[in-house]
């Protein structure tokens, strides 16, 4: 029997499953929770495609150029070309599946988003992810009923067996029965970014532990660009996490200011007269960081949405307003909201080819867990696109040369992570991987992670510390500033480093090397 295993049932996992099913290939869709609870439902602002419906003569070439520029030319040009070429079809397909993206007379309405001069972002108010997920969930249900998609609900990834660079099997745990299954067959990883390494400090889901990434790294799966972590400029702390205020707030006219000598200073508009508040996220977050360090600006940075028209609040941002009122007890239409940057997206992750193959035969990855399209900084609206397209692309690759699929109940020793070790690792990583980095902070963090690694900690915690250490090492070795990676001791871009930082685990060591961004070396 032939079947593909998919771990994760968010946008990339569902896209992969639907693509397989459409082609008559069966799959196992494994997730710890139903798709309705996946992090993808949190995506707010929109999804990019050069559909050119707004009379601005937008082109696919410009979508490509903006993506490359936003990512500081660190992403693979060939992959971004395929992505942007396919974007209009990806978005129209979601629309035809019934995702209620905003439209007029059957044509999608597009909004402005950061790092892009033209309107290119299709959206559904500020709940785009939820709307797309609902349509994909309904579509997947059709194939669940026919048996092509078999869900493994409440199952989590627990282990992987690799021999001579080929995948043998994965191990999953049924969290209800506590039984372990070994599944052979081609496998696509769609487990999302590494939020779980920064518990409580990200805009993502609390479901993400980061353990899947740590287990894969430990088993010899290559990761790339782990130093590139996107701090979204406009987040607010609510208990237990950072809540995102969508970039759409600025896309629709929201302005950032800080009080300077008792006067409002619109610092982004002063410094960047063309894109103003809609510069790429890395730039805005960094400017917020700098402006707050100035002695004449002692207070918080505010997002001022008070001048937005009632029409925009009603038709485009009503859900965002409701959410801010519910969690902050403040009406953004009446008063500016204090905001600060928060961890939002991991550009780095499992290194994949343009076809989404990893360095392990039979193992593929898509969505935020994979490193492919976003370079040193992701543009808003490109993550939903990358996830939907990446899942489909990975499925197309996984359908080829399928080994036999099998399932076997096994006994398995699962190690458990300790809250205190997790918390210490988080503090170490935050110390080294903040918005502004330097060798002193990074070396201190590496020293601490080394000490933690040598303590008597559980196997999974050792794997986590090792992957965290790989991220710190990547940030230390990249002696330049590019995109979201800002080094105060190397404040300029250095094209010697226009390369991927590839890390691989080897026993207790981590092998780090730089390879050209377009390289498909060993994949």
């Amino acid at each position, binding site marked *: 029997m032939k079947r593909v295993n998919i771990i994760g049932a968010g946008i990339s996992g569902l896209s992969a499953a639907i693509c397989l099913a459409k082609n008559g290939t069966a799959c196992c869709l494994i997730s710890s*929770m*139903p798709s*309705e*609870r*996946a*992090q993808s*439902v*949190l995506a707010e602002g929109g999804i990019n495609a050069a559909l050119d419906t707004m009379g601005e003569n937008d082109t696919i070439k410009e979508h490509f150029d903006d993506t490359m520029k936003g990512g500081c030319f660190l992403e693979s040009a060939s992959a971004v070309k395929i992505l942007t070429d396919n974007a209009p079809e990806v978005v129209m*397909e979601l*629309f*035809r*599946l*019934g*995702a*209620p993206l*905003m*439209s*007029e*007379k*059957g044509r999608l309405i597009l909004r402005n988003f950061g790092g892009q001069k033209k309107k290119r972002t299709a959206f*559904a*108010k500020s*709940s785009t992810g*939820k*709307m797309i997920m*609902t*349509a994909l969930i*309904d*579509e997947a*249900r*059709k194939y*669940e*009923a026919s048996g092509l998609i078999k869900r493994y*609900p409440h199952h989590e990834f627990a282990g992987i067996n690799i021999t001579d660079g080929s995948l043998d099997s994965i191990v999953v745990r049924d969290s*209800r029965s*506590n039984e372990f299954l070994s599944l052979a067959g081609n496998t696509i990883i769609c487990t999302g970014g590494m939020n779980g390494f920064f518990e409580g400090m990200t805009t993502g*889901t*609390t*479901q993400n532990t980061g353990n899947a990434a740590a287990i894969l790294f430990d088993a010899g799966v290559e990761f790339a660009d782990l130093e590139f972590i996107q701090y979204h400029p406009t987040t607010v702390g*609510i*208990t*237990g*996490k950072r*809540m995102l205020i969508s970039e759409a707030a600025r896309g629709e006219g929201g302005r950032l200011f800080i009080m300077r000598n008792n006067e409002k200073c619109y610092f982004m508009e002063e410094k960047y007269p063309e894109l103003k508040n809609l510069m790429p996220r890395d730039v805005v977050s960094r400017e917020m960081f700098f402006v707050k360090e100035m002695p004449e600006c002692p207070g918080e940075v505010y997002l001022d949405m008070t001048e937005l028209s009632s029409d925009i609040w009603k038709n485009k941002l009503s859900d965002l307003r409701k*959410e801010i009122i*519910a*969690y902050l*007890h403040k009406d953004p239409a009446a008063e500016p909201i204090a905001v600060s940057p928060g961890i939002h997206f991991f550009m780095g992750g499992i290194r994949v080819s343009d076809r989404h193959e990893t360095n392990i035969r039979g193992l593929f990855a898509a969505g935020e867990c994979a490193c492919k399209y976003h370079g040193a900084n992701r543009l808003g609206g490109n993550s939903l696109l990358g996830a939907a397209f990446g899942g489909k692309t990975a499925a197309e690759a996984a359908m080829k040369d399928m080994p036999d699929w099998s399932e076997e109940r096994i006994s398995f020793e699962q190690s458990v992570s300790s*809250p*205190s070790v997790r*918390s210490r690792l988080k503090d170490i990583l935050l110390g080294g991987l903040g918005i502004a980095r330097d060798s002193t902070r990074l070396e201190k963090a590496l020293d601490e992670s080394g000490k933690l690694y040598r303590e008597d900690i559980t196997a999974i915690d050792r794997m986590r510390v090792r992957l965290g250490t790989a991220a710190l090492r990547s940030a230390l070795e990249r002696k330049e500033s590019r995109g979201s990676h800002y080094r105060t001791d190397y404040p300029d871009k250095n094209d010697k480093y226009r390369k991927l930082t590839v890390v691989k685990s080897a026993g207790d060591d981590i092998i780090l090397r730089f390879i050209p961004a377009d390289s498909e070396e060993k994949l």
Partner: protein
Amino acid sequence: MKYTIRILRRDRGSTESYIQDFEYETENDSDTAATALTSLNSREALTDISGLPARAIEWECSCLQKKCGACAMRINGRPGLACDAVLADFGKNIIELEPLRKFPVICDLTVDRSILFENLKTLRLWLAQTSDPSDKMQELAYESSECLQCGCCLEICPNFYAGGKFFGMSAVPVTTRLLAQMSKAEYKEISRLYSKHIFSGCGKSLACRDICPKKIDTEKLLVNANALAVWKRNGNAHFARSVNNE
């Protein structure tokens, strides 16, 4: 502020429930039931209010901002989302957390809600062909798609029980969106199933309307789905009317 978090617990595999109290102290007025549970579970050694060791509390949680529906439970007797239940708003020091009662308990506050998803399959809720999206139905499709499948509406419904013929309100948003978008040819089978599993069992108590954490206007969705599936009225015209009346 000092709270007693009173939890109706059940060990995995057991059929007996028991109550355990925990002390939770906070200075933050906006702390929710989800905050309290997260905080209790992050203690290195969890102890109950009398200082006896207790195992970690099992509950489901994902987004913490009312967008995923994972953390539905009974909070001081009312179904809701833990991340939406601000402790200070209850005006009392004891916060009672219980699992939803309409679903089998797995452990503590975690229940098995798989019946929700099974019922959607039984109702054959998908588009056989891709839709031809119309602007008119956009708002209705949007509102329907907001449903979290959390199960609060089923918990409060006097007519729903898991495994029964009546599938309850949680199936209505999905039906509404798809009926609004599907071709006329697909209507027939979905309409038949809708009549059998929703329309004929709904007692119109509309308790679901008041309990929905997303404040989805369940009455409006019901009226629309009934009009389309049962009365075969032109849904677009009807929806246009109901919007104009707002």
